[in-house]
């Protein structure tokens, strides 16, 4: 007997594969989305800082814009720089 696979419809889940589970700013799951977004994934991406802390892009942008002086990482208080 031979088996020919005509179609294999598989199921997978995606993950950002960040160290933490939740965003330190909005406390929502990384694999979820920030409070301003409707859909996770492409629409609400993650961004890593030079300090290696990750946040929702929208969350850290809001944070950075709200800072009057030099923006610091909300987690480690080092100067915030986007990881190159």
């Amino acid at each position, binding site marked *: *007997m*031979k*088996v*020919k*696979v*005509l*179609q*294999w*419809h*598989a*199921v*997978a*889940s*995606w*993950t*950002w*594969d960040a160290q933490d589970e939740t965003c330190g700013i909005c406390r929502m*799951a990384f*694999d*979820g989305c920030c409070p301003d977004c*409707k*859909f*996770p*994934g*492409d629409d609400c991406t*993650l961004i890593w800082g030079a300090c290696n802390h990750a946040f929702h892009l929208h969350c850290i942008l809001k944070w950075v814009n709200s800072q009057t002086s030099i923006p610091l990482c909300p987690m480690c208080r080092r100067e915030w720089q986007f990881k190159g």
Partner: protein
Amino acid sequence: MHLDDADGALDSWARFCSLSGELVGGAGDLSVGPRLAPVVADLCARGLATLVRDYFLHNLEETFRNNAVKMFWQKFHPYCNSSAVERIKFCVQESWPEDVLSIALEDICLEKSYQEKCVLVLVHVLQSYEEKTENKLKTVEFSSSLMPRYQLMVSSVLLTTLPLSFPEILNIYFKKKLEELNTMMDGSDETDLACHELFGRSKVSAWDSKMDIDGQETVISESGNLVRNIGKVVRDLRCLGFTSMTEDSYSSAIIWLLKSKVYELAGDDYRIPVLGRVKKWIQAVPLQFLHSLLAYLGDSVDYESGLSGLKSPLASRPSSFPGIGVPSEALLRWHMRLEYFAYETLQDLRIGKLFEIIVDYPESSPAIEDLKQCLEYTGQHSKLVDSFISSLRYRLLTAGASTNDILHQYVSTIKALRSIDPTGVFLEAVGEPIRDYLRGRKDTIKCIVTMLTDGSGGNTNGSGNAGDNLLEELNRDAENQENADYDDHTNIDEKQAWLNSESWEPDPVEADPLKGSRNRRKIDILGLMVSIIGSKDQLVNEYRVMLAEKLLSKSDFDIDSDIRTLELLKIHFGESSMQKCEIMLNDLIDSKRTNSNIKTSLLRTFETVAGQEETEMSHDVLDATIISSNFWPPIQTEDLAVPASVDQMLSDFAKRFHQIKTPRKLLWKKNLGMVKLELQFEDRNMQFTVVPVHAAIVMRFQEKPSWTSKTLATEIGIPVDSLNRRIGFWTSKGVLTESVGPDADDHIFTVVDSMSDVNKNSIVNESCEAFQMTEDEGESSVASVEEQLKKEMTVYEKFIIGMLTNFGNMTLDKIHNTLKMFCAEPSYDKSLQQLQSFLSGLVSDEKLEMRDGLYLLKK
């Protein structure tokens, strides 16, 4: 005159006796009058007037009793002396009791009218005496009271000798005559026109001209003749003092006929309106009959005759009846009485069959419309509520009825009753037992969600549009309503109505239904459905689980109908409630796009790698549904070692995903999905759509034709008992055979490569059912709401057991409140419905028992 002369008195008395004997007993000879006058005058002058009157009346009574009355009743003896069974023989004779009755009445009335003439003779004698004497006061009484006393005597003699079955005979007579009349009308085709013509003509030519003298040669219609005969009988009966007995008799005959007419017209067909026909018939038959009868008897007072000074509240009612003209007040009373009776009869009939009518709804809406009109007239809505609730309990709310059937009947009930009762007051009363019952069933939520969202499932009885779900239908209704009266029904109202529905309370019973539905809350079917479940969150949650299950067992990305359903749910439940579901559907849309990106790039890469073996799978066969797992219900994952070739494809796919979407990664849930296979044997090919574990099992048999369950389980990476359960699928399809190996608990499975020794006919069958397995053999990939709840509730189980150990037994509410009060760690946040469904799980696990609404520990 010598008033003190005793001999003279005796002499006069003797002469009076002989003369009155001659008069009363005489065969129609009234010539004694002049001779009687002096004798009576003499006796009256002697103060013996009372004696004269009493003797005379007594004489009449004796004669009447011994001749006429005796003969009269004798004519009915044969019937009266018969047994109940024999009486039927009389009834079936066509001319019975008509002939007997009319002959008997004729005879006795003849005798009576002769006696009346005799009475008049004495009255005249007394009157002329009274005129001569001054002392009028004393004697006036005698002349004028003589006739009434005579009439009283006649009727009391008859009534005291009345056989018990005489009213029955009268009743039979009227029934037969009315039926005859009814048949005549039926013969005239029941159309308005025919009735008009028949009665129109008879009114002009027959009634009016006939009324003055009987027996004139006029062209009298058949029905006119019939009514005239009845009228004669009625007149005779009245003359004998049977007035009220006669009226009762024909009234009850009319009512009886009306009732049987209503039954005949209404029948068991609910698809045609009957009320209009019943009303028409009332005018065509019983009212025409009564009109003619009353006119014949001279009872009717027509408004036309100028006596309208007597204004009754009915006077402003119908101005004219067909064939009758302006009806008399008596006739109007009859009309109202008959209509009321018809409404009540039809109403009772329909209420008795309301269960069937609602099963037939909406085809049965004419019957519902009739019922509505009847109830508006009689105001007996409570009858409907009581009767319908008891038939629900008896016929629907039983263990044998499926939850789906109950729900469908519930929805039909809502739809049917809201037209009868736009305020929803009675619907609330009727719906409560259904809702209560459904709350006790475990599959209720699931069935409701299926009914709301699934076009193909649920509605199996074929009514309603195919592929149309309830939600779709409700939405269409709402749109239609909006178009019909947009002023009181905007989208904001809809939402508000939805919000209100959870805190909805029935109106007081005395709420006036005439206040109109316009200003009132609309009956919200969806709200009523949700109130069964308890909250919309539970409904949404169940929907999400069912949607997840459906999406994960798809082999394509076609979700158009699910998107449409979601849009409808968003309208009713609000966008935020449906957000997770929206993300799930969006995952499918994204997956479709990502799949095609990855596949094109993979194919391009592998085309360049030359010399690929034909047996190697092309990346084309792989599709992947990529989910945002945070927004999906908990998914049951299980280890599974898929064949190496498939595994390679999966990792190629995942790598490419990582490249495209970096830094995102894919995590395969290898036990989930759908696989289409073609099994190629020496003599046949078979196609199957199976879950991955089934595919993984059967593909191992390419390497070697026989496997023991233990080794195969290890290879595939699943427990042996799980393998044994799943491999049954392939043995049942005849692909594998099972035999006992050296080890008793280790079975050997061998592939059946040639069908030559098995039945070849089954090949055809196999290919037919090739793609149908998923329903019962597919496995649930998502933890059901019930399972989730069970997991969450398990922490409270020990509290519940502890409470019941202390208290013995508790109601649902008590358990709920106690948990709320005392359960701090973890705090108790479940709804009453959730608790109930958890408890019913414990009951079916035989940990608890439920008796009379009380939960107790199972011993």
